[in-house]
């Protein structure tokens, strides 16, 4: 292979094929087929979309009623231990092993994951330093604040050096500074340390700040997937629009005219149009419909637009 050859495609780190998971009569995942690309992938969706269930199915915590899951080349149903040996999982809820200080807890997790005792203790010190708990590593985990507990959950997921890190709502309960630091850690792991990361979150900025790819879930189904840049629509233009009159009706008319449009919840319409259309077209349409434009500001397409469009299409 020469330097000019393209790097080999590492392939998906996880793949779901027609996976259905039900809790009693409630379907948490409905025939989901998806691939998680190498690198950082965001798993986006409102609460109850099935994100956590998907991660738990990847870990083998829940057995799918139908379909198959593969992670890092292993069949999750047949080789769950091989999968879990290579995955680090940071659960959404507060979780720790009681009665241990941070070093003992993280080292213990390392040993459970197959590291001999001495390297596990050494790694525990290193990852605690890395996640910013170096000064507090001899304190009982039970006494940690919410933000510190988020960090130690990341440390226990990292201690055995996983190839795939599954982070379920990693910034839950963190203050703004802590949140920024957590997102910086995730970015560092994904882009500098070659750890594949799945970030499950309902917070769009978190995913946008850390991931290149995204899977959008809604009501147990996959409604959009791909590189974030592509999903935003290259060349598309966005506008924020406020009108005097019936905004819901005008939004429908915009959609009929070929624009993507959604209300941001404050009475402002976000309108996405193709690259060869612009503000003049919006003014023209408003004039023909007798609608008065009170505010029009150019914007850029965001992940929120992708999300709103995907969710909106499903609901429609």
């Amino acid at each position, binding site marked *: 292979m020469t330097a000019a050859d393209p790097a080999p495609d590492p392939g998906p780190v996880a793949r779901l094929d027609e996976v259905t998971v039900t*809790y*009693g*009569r*409630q379907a948490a995942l409905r025939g989901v087929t998806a691939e998680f690309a190498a690198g950082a992938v965001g798993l986006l969706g409102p609460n109850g979309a099935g994100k956590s269930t998907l991660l*738990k199915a990847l*870990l*083998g*915590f*829940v057995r799918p009623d139908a379909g198959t899951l593969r992670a890092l080349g292993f069949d999750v149903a047949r080789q769950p*231990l*091989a999968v*879990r*040996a290579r*995955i*680090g*999982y940071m*659960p959404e*809820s*507060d*979780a*720790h*092993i*009681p*009665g241990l200080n941070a070093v003992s807890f993280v080292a*213990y*997790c390392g*040993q*459970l*994951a*197959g*590291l*001999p005792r001495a*390297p596990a203790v050494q*790694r525990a010190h*290193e*990852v605690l*330093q*890395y996640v910013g708990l170096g000064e507090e590593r001899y304190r009982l985990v*039970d006494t940690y604040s919410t933000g510190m507990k988020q960090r130690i959950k990341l440390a*226990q*997921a*990292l201690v*055995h*050096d996983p190839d795939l890190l599954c982070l379920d709502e990693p910034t839950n309960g963190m203050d703004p500074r802590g949140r920024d630091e957590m997102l910086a850690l995730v970015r*560092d*792991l994904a882009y500098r*340390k*070659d750890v594949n990361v799945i970030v499950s979150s309902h917070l769009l900025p978190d995913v946008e700040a850390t991931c290149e790819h995204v899977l959008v879930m809604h009501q147990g189904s996959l409604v959009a997937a791909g590189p974030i840049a592509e999903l935003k629509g290259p060349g598309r233009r966005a506008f924020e629009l406020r009108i005097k009159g019936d905004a819901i009706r005008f939004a429908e008319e915009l959609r009929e005219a070929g624009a993507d449009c959604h209300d941001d919840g404050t009475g402002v319409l976000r309108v996405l149009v193709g690259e060869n259309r612009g503000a003049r077209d919006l003014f023209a349409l408003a004039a023909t419909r007798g609608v008065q434009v009170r505010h029009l500001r150019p914007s850029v397409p965001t992940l929120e637009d992708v999300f709103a469009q995907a969710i909106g299409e499903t609901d429609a």
Partner: protein
Amino acid sequence: MGIHDQSYRRYVGPRTEPGAAWSVIAWSGIRALLARRIFLVVLLFAWSQFVVRAVLLYLSANFPSMELIAPSVQTFRDFFDQQSFFVFVVTVYAGAGLIANDRRANALQIYLAKPLTRAEYVAGKAGVLVAFLLLVTWVPAMLLLVLQAMFAGNLTFVRENLFLLPAMTVFAMLEVLAASFAMLALSSLSTSARFAGMLYAGAILFTTAIFQTVRGVTGSSAASWISLSANLAQVGDVIFGVAPRHDTPWGISLLIVVGLIGASLAVLGWRVRGVEVVT
């Protein structure tokens, strides 16, 4: 000179094969309990009977006038009988929080996200309890047998009662496994160690109280199957080859003890999961 990188490093060292995590869990639990002074005091008291019986063995072996206290099969049966109080205390103290505390701190999803099975997790937790219960039953009983031979200066007693070795082992294992799995099952049902301990104590004391009441009214011990400890005592008598103390057929008592272990394992299989599903 390069500056030491305190950032995240990939791990290239050795890893153990899956299957050994239960021993990590067991050792961690054992170390945690041994670090508690109160528990060490309990263990010390649990060995007090051993010390007394060792002295009696010495006296009977060295003073012909002490023939009245010469060891017999019944001596060892009685030893286990009297140790059952410490089995109860150690089970409640060491076992009540083993799973309940993990459930309270949501630790099960931490454990089960690692390369270990639910069976390994239960085995690790059971290992903690089994180790300490054997330490207060089987280990001192075996040591007493060894001391008897040493004090007597011959193996006559051991040779004549060779069946004591398997009898003590089988009974100790039955008693220890029944107590361990019953306690773990109750611990898995709650997020409070105190509540789990009270459940276990209640189950043991309440069933015994009912049995004793029925016995007082009817004058017969045919209802001993009601009491968990009476069932163990009945099976123990048969294993040691002494006259059974109750009127319940020993087969029924054995069935109940084995059934208790089976039911406890079923509860553990149901409760020990990485995700709690509420439907």
